[in-house]
C-alpha cells in the first residue's frame, strides 16, 4: 500500500506545489462510517478530500457534482454501500445509473472520467477509504487542475469580446429591424 502522496510542503512556487481538491459525498451508513473507522484506526491518507455527509448516495444530485466542479473542485468522489447493502434498499443503484449517464455528459464536456469516481465502501472498509483517496489524489495530480472557474472566466472574456465585436459591427451597419437586440457590451454570461 502506497503512502499518501503528501503534498509538497516546501515554499516553492510552481506546478509541483499544486494539489488537487476533491469534494466527496459519502453516505451516512457505509462510507461515512468507513471514513470514521479509518480515523479510529489512525490510517493515514492524503488531506485533499472534503467530505459532505448525505444519508444515502441516492441523494447525490448530478447538479451537486457539476456545481462542485464548477466551483473549482478537481474531482468528485461519491461513496455508497456495496450493491445489495444499501441502507435504503437500492439508493446506491440509482446513483450508479446517474453516474453512468453523467460520465457520458462529462466526456462530451472534455472532463476526464477519473475526475468523478463512484466507489462502494462498506462500514468495515476503512482501508479502502485510504486506498481510494490516495489513488484518486495521485490520479488527479497526474491529470492536473481542472480549473473550471478559470475556464469560465476565459470563456466569459471571449464571449464579451465577441459581443463587443458584433455590437461594433452592428452599430456600423446601422439598425436592423428584424434582429433581436444583441448582448450588451460588458455583460458577462456567467454570473
Amino acid at each position, binding site marked *: 500500500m502506497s503512502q*499518501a502522496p*503528501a*503534498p*509538497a*510542503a*516546501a*515554499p*516553492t*512556487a510552481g506546478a*509541483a*506545489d*499544486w*494539489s488537487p*481538491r476533491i*469534494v466527496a459525498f459519502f453516505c451516512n*451508513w*457505509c462510507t461515512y*462510517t468507513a*471514513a*470514521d473507522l*479509518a*480515523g*479510529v484506526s*489512525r*490510517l*493515514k*491518507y492524503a*488531506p485533499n478530500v*472534503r*467530505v*459532505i*455527509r*448525505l*444519508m*444515502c448516495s*441516492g*441523494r*447525490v*444530485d*448530478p447538479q*451537486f457534482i457539476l*456545481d*462542485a466542479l464548477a*466551483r*473549482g*473542485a478537481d474531482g468528485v468522489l461519491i461513496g455508497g454501500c456495496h450493491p*445489495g*447493502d444499501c*441502507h*435504503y*434498499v*437500492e*439508493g446506491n443503484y*440509482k446513483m450508479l445509473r446517474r453516474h453512468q449517464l453523467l460520465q457520458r455528459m462529462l466526456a462530451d464536456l472534455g472532463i476526464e472520467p477519473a475526475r468523478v469516481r463512484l466507489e462502494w465502501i*462498506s*462500514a*468495515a*472498509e476503512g482501508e479502502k477509504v*485510504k486506498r481510494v483517496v490516495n489513488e484518486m489524489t495521485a490520479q488527479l495530480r497526474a491529470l492536473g*487542475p481542472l480549473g473550471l472557474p478559470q475556464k469560465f472566466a476565459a470563456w466569459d472574456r471571449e464571449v464579451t469580446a465577441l459581443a463587443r465585436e458584433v455590437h461594433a459591427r452592428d452599430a456600423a451597419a446601422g439598425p436592423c429591424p428584424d434582429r433581436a437586440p444583441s448582448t450588451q457590451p460588458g455583460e458577462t454570461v456567467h454570473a
Partner: protein
Amino acid sequence: MTRPQHVRIGFYVCHCGHNIAAMVDCTAVARYIATLPGVVLSRDYKYMCSDPGQELIQQDIREYGLNRVVVASCSPLLHEHTFRGAVEAGGLNPFFFHMVNIREHNSWVHTDRVLATEKAKDLARAAIERVVHHKPLEIKKVPIHPDVLVVGGGIAGIHAAMTLANAGKKVFLVEREPSIGGHMARFDKTFPTLDCAACILTPKMSEVGSHPNITLWTWSEVVKVDGYVGNYTVQVKRKARYVIEDLCTGCQDCIAHCVYKEPKFDDLFNERLGKRKPVYIPFPQATPQVVLIDPEVCLNFKRSKNPDGTPVVSDKCKKTCVEACGEKRAIDFTQKDQVVEIKVGTILVCTGFKTFDARRVPAYGYGVYPNVYTALEVERLVNASGPTGGHVVLRQGTNPDGSPKTPRSIGIIHCVGSRDKKTNLWCSRVCCMYSMKLAHLLKEHTGAEIYNFYIDIRTPGKGYEEFYNKLLEEGTHFIRGRVGEVTDWTMTPEEEGKLVIRVEDTLAGVVRRIPVDMVVLATGLEPQADADAVRRLFNMSCGGDGWFLERHPKLAPVNTFTDGVFLAGCCQGPKDIPDTVAQAGAAAAEALALIDKGYVEQEPNTAHILDTECSGCKSCIPLCPYTAILFDETRRKAYINEALCKGCGTCVGSCPSGSIVQNLFEDAEIFSEIAGVLAGEPVTAGRTGNLTPIATP
C-alpha cells in the same frame, strides 16, 4: 458575502485534548471562522463534549443571542446527539446546529499540520455556510411494537428470549434446527468449571419451551423483514416436519416402530458419529419434544420433487409409524412449508457460528486418516448420551481383546484454521480453553498420554489460568509449536501403526516426531455459511472477516447500524459461553429500554413535495423503495406519506423540477456546503508556506 441580518452563529472548535489539537491548529481555525459574516462568536475549547463545554454553548446562546451553532470536533455519529441536546437546553431548536468532523476525518488521518488545519477551516466554513439555511424541525415520535423477535435458539437466543419474556414481553424465538440448544447442547462439559453442559442448559431449554410469553418456532427460518425500528413485519418459514407439532406428545413410539429396525442414517447432531432413523428426535433433551421425518430417506417419500419443491409422497411404506401414533394422528405426510407473518418492534440476531472445516488444512489429514477427529466430534465421543455412550473408542483399530481401540496417546492440535492468513486470521478465543477441557476429559476417560500443541496459550477469563495450571498438574504435555504435519509414515519401530505428529518444540528448539493413536483438531470458529444472506435480511453489516458488525466496538457492542436490530453471541465474533450470555442479556436490555420508552424518535430528515413546483411527471414514484410517494390524480401532483418516508433522499436527487425537499439535506444546504468547502484558495505549498507553523503541543 452577506448574511440575513437575523443570523447569529456561534462556532466552537474542540481540541479533544491532543486528539485534534496535535494536528489541527484550533486557535487558527477559530480566529479564521470569526472573520466570516454572520459569525458572532468563535471559540476553541479543550473538550466540547464535557459538561462545561455544553454549558458554554448554552450560556453563549443566552448571552450572545445565538441562533445557529456549529461545533467542529469528532464524528457526528458520535456526538451530534449530545450537542443538539445542548443547543436545545440553551433554548434553541436543536436543528439549528451543525457538526464538523475534524477528528476521524482529519486530525487522525493526516500527518501535515498545515494542510490539516486548512482542511479544518474548509470544513468549518462549509458548515457556517450551511447552517444559515437550517430550519427548525420537530422530532417525530413513533410508537414501538412491544413484541420481540429472537433469531437463533443457541444459548444466546435462549438467554435473551428468557430475559425478555420474564420482563413480560412477548417473544418469538425462531430456530432453524429441529431443536433449540445450538452448539452448547452438543458439548459435554463446560470450561473451566467442568459443569455438565446439558445440566445447566436443559432446564433453560424446557423453560423456553413452556414459557407463556415465548412462541417457539423451531425448524423455521426468517425469510423476509420489512419495516423499521418499532414496526417490523417479519415473514417466517415454518418448514414441514411431517408431524403436527401440537398433536405430537414426544412419546417416540413412531421411532420405535419405524420400518427401519436399526438406525441407518447419519446423525448430524452427533457429528455423523452415530446413526438415526428417518423419523427422529435430534437428541433426548430436544426442545420441543417433537419428532420429525426426513423426507430424503423416509420410505414413504419418493426422491423426486413436486413442481412446488415439496417431496412426492409415494405411500409405498407400511407406515408403521402412523400405526404407532394411533389416535394422536400427529403424522402428516402431506404437510407443506408454511410462511407466517408476525409484527415485532425489535429484533435480536443470535445466529451463532460454524466450526472450521478441518479438511481445509490438508497437512493434518482430517478425512484421510480415520483417527483424526475434530473437537466437536470428541465432545460427542466423551458425552454419556453420545454415540458411544461416553466411551472413547477410535474409528480405526482394535484392542488386543478385539474391541474397538482405546487410544493410549492423544495429540490435540490447537489453532486449526485460526491465526492463519490462508484460512482465518483471527484467534477463535475458545479453542485453548476447550482443548484443555478435552485434554482433561480424555485423560479422565482413557488415561492416555495427552500432548497439546499450541502457538500461544490464551486464558483470559475468570478461573481460566487456574484451569491451565490444573492441567499442568495432571501431567498433560504442552508443546509450544504449530504442528507441521500429521502422517502415517514411520522412522522408528514405535511409530508403526500410529499417526506421527511432526512439530518443532519451539521452547526446546528441537524438531520432534511424536507418535499418537488419536489426533484431535481444535478447529476455530467461523461465521455461518449464510451469514451474508442473513445480514442482508436484517440490513446489517459484516466486518471484513465476515462476522456481523456492531455499531461501535466499545460503546455499542450489541447494536447494529439498523436501529432496533441487536446482536448477541458468536454471530458478532468468537466468544465463550459466559461472554455470550452476558451479551445476550445486554442485547435484551437494549431492546427492553427501547420498548419501555414506548416510542422511537425519528430523525426528521424526511422529504416533502412542494406543491407549487411539482409538474406531476411521476418520475419520483418508482424510485421510492418504501412506496411512500403517492400521486393525487385530481390535482396531478405527487405527495409523500411522511410516515413511510425513511429519509434517503433518492427522490430528491432525481426530481427534474427540484420540487422535493429533504429536511436537513435541502438543496440550498448542500449547495452552500459545496460552495463552502471550495471557497478558500486551493492549498499550495506557496500559500501554506506563509503560515506560521505552530508548535505541536
